[in-house]
């Protein structure tokens, strides 16, 4: 399994993805990847993975977090130099010719995204809730 978080730690709650990855690595020693934004070449980082958890901050989702299954899809992003997670899976399938790994998105609700800010208190609480959920998922009993 790969945990892939992205965001900018100097933009307040935009750093939720990297913060989750850092804590997941520290607490569970999992395989992780972190970057500022999703880019097309990240498709190649998914090679050989059977499962991927994408982690990002959310500006409009439910609190403390949302988890949803992800399918490869050519969703049009009106944004910018970065991709959507579903778009990345679609690029993966085109580039490798293989079915994309099972993927979910963990969207942790953030509130403040100002330059130079650290994680807000509310985002920290949401981060802890997300970590609790994910650590519980890793327990053997959770599989039964």
């Amino acid at each position: 399994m790969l945990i892939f978080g992205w965001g900018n730690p100097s933009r307040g709650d935009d750093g939720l993805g990297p913060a989750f990855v850092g804590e997941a690595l520290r607490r569970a020693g999992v395989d992780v990847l972190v970057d500022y934004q999703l880019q097309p070449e990240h498709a190649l980082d998914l090679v050989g993975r059977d499962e991927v958890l994408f982690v990002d901050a959310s500006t409009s989702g439910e609190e403390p977090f949302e988890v949803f299954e992800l399918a490869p899809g050519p969703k049009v992003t009106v944004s910018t130099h970065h991709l959507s997670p579903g778009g990345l899976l679609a690029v993966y399938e085109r580039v490798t010719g293989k079915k994309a790994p099972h993927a979910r998105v963990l969207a942790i609700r953030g509130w403040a995204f100002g330059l130079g800010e650290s994680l807000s208190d509310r985002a920290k609480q949401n981060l802890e809730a997300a970590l609790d959920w994910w650590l519980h998922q890793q327990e053997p009993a959770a599989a039964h």
Partner: protein
Amino acid sequence: MTETLRRIAIDPLSRVEGHGKVTLLLDDAGHVHEARLHIVEFRGFEAFIVGRPYWEVPVIVQRLCGICPVSHNLCAAKALDAVVGGVPPPSAVKLRRLMHAGQLLQSHALHFFHLASPDLLFGFDSDMARRNLMGLVETHPELAKQGVMLRKFGQQVLEAVYGKRIHGTGAVPGGVNKHLSLEHRDEFSKQLPQVKQWALGAVALAKQLTEANLVRHAGFGTVPSAMLSLVAADGSLDLYDGGLRAKDAEGRLLFDGLDASSYRQLIQEEVRPWSYMKFPYLSALGPDAGWYKVGPLARLQVCDRLSTPLAEAARQELIASSPRTIHAPLVFHWARMIELLHAAEDIERLLQDDALVQGELVSTGERQREGVGVIEAPRGTLIHHYEVGDDDLVTRCNLIVSTTNNNQAMNEAIRSVARQYLDGHRVTEGLLNHLEVAVRAFDPCLSCATHAMGQMPMEVTVVDSSGAVLSRAERGAS
């Protein structure tokens, strides 16, 4: 004067970093009087730096931009070389050049393969749902794959020298942190023949797409201006170092070989009340005539030559394509791919140098209070200027980023396109598409680094002179 100006706002631009907003001011006759590209997120960068220890700056400035963090890292380190009184050793300079070439290759590949080529391949008026990376993946999978592989190669080079993607510490004041390993050198050398082939293919495609639409492209957003770039002492393009050279709109030399630290004498920065971004101009020409272009198209015409053979041959073809200086924004794409090829050749040349794997990495000397760094970042000339107190804290910071250097050029291109394509007072899909294509040619980075899900809807608003909204259109958020 009682002229009434009508306002048309387009907010924000798609597939351009950060939040861009275009306001078209119409005169009483309904003609475009002025175009304003608002850069909402640029505020606060310099204040973000002031008060921090100087040695922290090359790391922290990377977070200004999630697309080209290495450019900011290198430029800050260059500026702070002067502060620590050091002249980076030859190994450090070559490792920095390797990082820089990797960043440029990666950045240019992203822009052409995944952002600009859909505009060029599908046409400006084609369906927005198709005119993007996913459309390219579906219809031109091999091209999309080459873009991915070029990006990956550039990323591998960066990680080998620069370190982790989000916490890289490649360049430090006075030098760099580490050598390239022999394993990485061998691995990259093996990949380079294929990388160069892809780059050659990209140059050919960009040239073909430009020439196939020559008439349309030549007049699209084209406004003559001066051009600025760094150039080596022998007249060749130097993306990492060298002296500042500028030419006027007809290609005549304005100045040459000037030290980067003299930028404040060469360039003035005008502040306008409606924008957070400044408007630089060449002091010698004044604010009205002194605005200039930077970036690939400017660089290839300001320099005398490129130092690598394949890219220089391609540059000669570009120069020969017009009897006069080329100002068409859409030719930036062709120039950008020539630079991508140049970067691949430069990486190949650097990898043959043993200084990458051995030699002194850092040099320091007598501490100074001030330093200026200038590099040619993927999008154009990038300037970092710092003053540092005796307590090692930054007391003053001035950044002129590439997109700021192209600020007026983008505004002029928008005005030109709007005058051509604005039909009545409504923002049509066609107008929006054409404005986006014009701005995207400059590959602006409008404050890149915040992106959380749901944050970037496309909103188009028409507002009259009284502030009333005449129409509004929105494209879905990511």
